[in-house]
């Protein structure tokens, strides 16, 4: 795993203020801006050389902004740990009923289509989705910048992303649009009119999202 380092690696990171020297000693002289940014200590990174920035495994209490002094505490419910006044438990990250457990005993809220919303991290979760981006193995039409201007993207096996856009010959009804307009909004419109699921590269629905798809996408979208 990326977070396990040898003592030698720890030593190297400890001399990071001398980044260039350290990089040279470690066999690297080509540190880019992103690397230097990573090496700089952050507010929550703790002691330099402790790998804190990369290894910050924190319980929520460590990472939550300070609460107002008179607000209910996670441990003690309303009024703080010294004077907990029991109240009905709510999904708020607090021990409202003063039983020592935060957000316990709250029923899940059923979701349309199945699954439920749960109280998690003091908030009600979203409903589960069948997949995150697309149905595994489904395909949508995309546009490429050369030759045929038409391509197909396949959804990955885990439904989390589309693969690369592979060039293909456009269907007969869109050949002319591809030839005349090349990569264009006109070609995207032709794709939709021809009954395909098409990547909305030209934001034809004007919602600001160019990564979504439009058209006949029932077998592609996760909802």
């Amino acid at each position: 795993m990326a977070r396990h380092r040898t003592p030698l690696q720890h030593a190297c990171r400890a001399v990071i203020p001398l980044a260039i020297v350290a990089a040279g000693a470690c066999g690297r002289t080509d540190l880019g801006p992103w690397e230097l940014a990573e090496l700089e200590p952050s507010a929550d990174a703790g002691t330099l050389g402790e790998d804190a920035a990369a290894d910050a495994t924190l319980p929520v209490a460590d990472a939550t902004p300070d609460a107002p002094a008179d607000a209910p505490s996670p441990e003690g419910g309303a009024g703080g740990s010294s004077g907990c006044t029991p109240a009905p438990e709510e999904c708020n990250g607090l021990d409202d009923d003063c039983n020592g457990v935060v957000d316990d005993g709250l029923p899940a809220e059923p979701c349309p289509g199945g699954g439920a919303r749960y109280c998690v991290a003091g908030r009600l979760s979203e409903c589960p989705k069948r997949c995150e981006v697309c149905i595994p193995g489904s395909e949508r039409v995309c546009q490429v910048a050369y030759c045929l201007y038409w391509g197909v993207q396949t959804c990955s096996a885990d439904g989390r992303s589309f693969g690369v856009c592979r060039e293909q010959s456009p269907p007969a009804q869109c050949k002319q649009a591809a030839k005349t307009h090349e990569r264009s909004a006109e070609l995207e419109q032709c794709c939709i009119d021809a009954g395909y699921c098409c990547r909305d590269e030209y934001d034809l629905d004007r919602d600001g999202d160019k990564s979504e798809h439009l058209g006949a996408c029932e077998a592609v979208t996760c909802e």
Partner: protein
Amino acid sequence: MTPAPRSPRAAPLRALAPLAAAAALCAFGPSARADECGRPDLLETMPPDGATDVPTDARLQARYAATAEYLGEEVVLEHVGVDERAVDPIFDVNEGLLVVSPPEALVPGDEYVIRWPRLRGLGTATLGRSADVRFVAGALADATAPEFAGLSSVEWDLDRSRDECTDSLQARYVFDLGLSPASDDGGRGSLTLVVFQTRGPGITAPEPFAVRRFPAPGKPLRVERTERDAIGEVCFAAVARDLVGRTSASGSVERCTRTVRPPFFEGCSAAPRGPRPGALVSLVLAGVAALSVGRRRSRAAR
């Protein structure tokens, strides 16, 4: 057969032909997709095969791949030695769960077999896998929520592997989530783990992204996120769910880590562990030099 004579210009063209053919195949040929891509397989069941002490009021569940569609396939519940009947399941599309509530409470100590069907998939003609699951009912109904203190740790790595659907490399951030001990009166083996990402790019509310049977004791749960979801500070939480739908009060326990974009600075680890080739060469040269000096001295002594 004598080959026809070719002009000098034909030779280089002929040499380029295989390359051109390969390029054309890459550009226009059908994408190579494995048969497994998008198969609507049954992935796991709760209770698992061979489970004992299944609560008498358990809802029996089978989790299918995201491509699976339930089109009224028959689910059969056999009360071993008593009867066998078709039961009406409910398909939870969001979690890919086919859920059966037995028409009557399970008989304590009796053996059952549930036959989960093969389902069809969206966009694929292939049927998925099915399973026959054998289990024994326990003495009591499920009375209490699971005991689970939530996630105990999180570690991350980046994985690039060939995707069976896209036939190309897909990068994923891999998180190993450590799990606190868990128990339930319906048996630990029948618990489901629901994992949420609570912080990260674009997270506005805790997002459930993995529903799995609870891993074996001591084993972490490995989950994956895309770069879009996983750069910077990312936090996770999890709840355990039993066979009647009760959940642990562990959703408030978050575990966080901070990821960075690749490529990673691994200068020191890039150094070879053994002696470097340069050092070895230096040692050999020093040895040769010492030998030659020794010989000169011995000659001089003569």
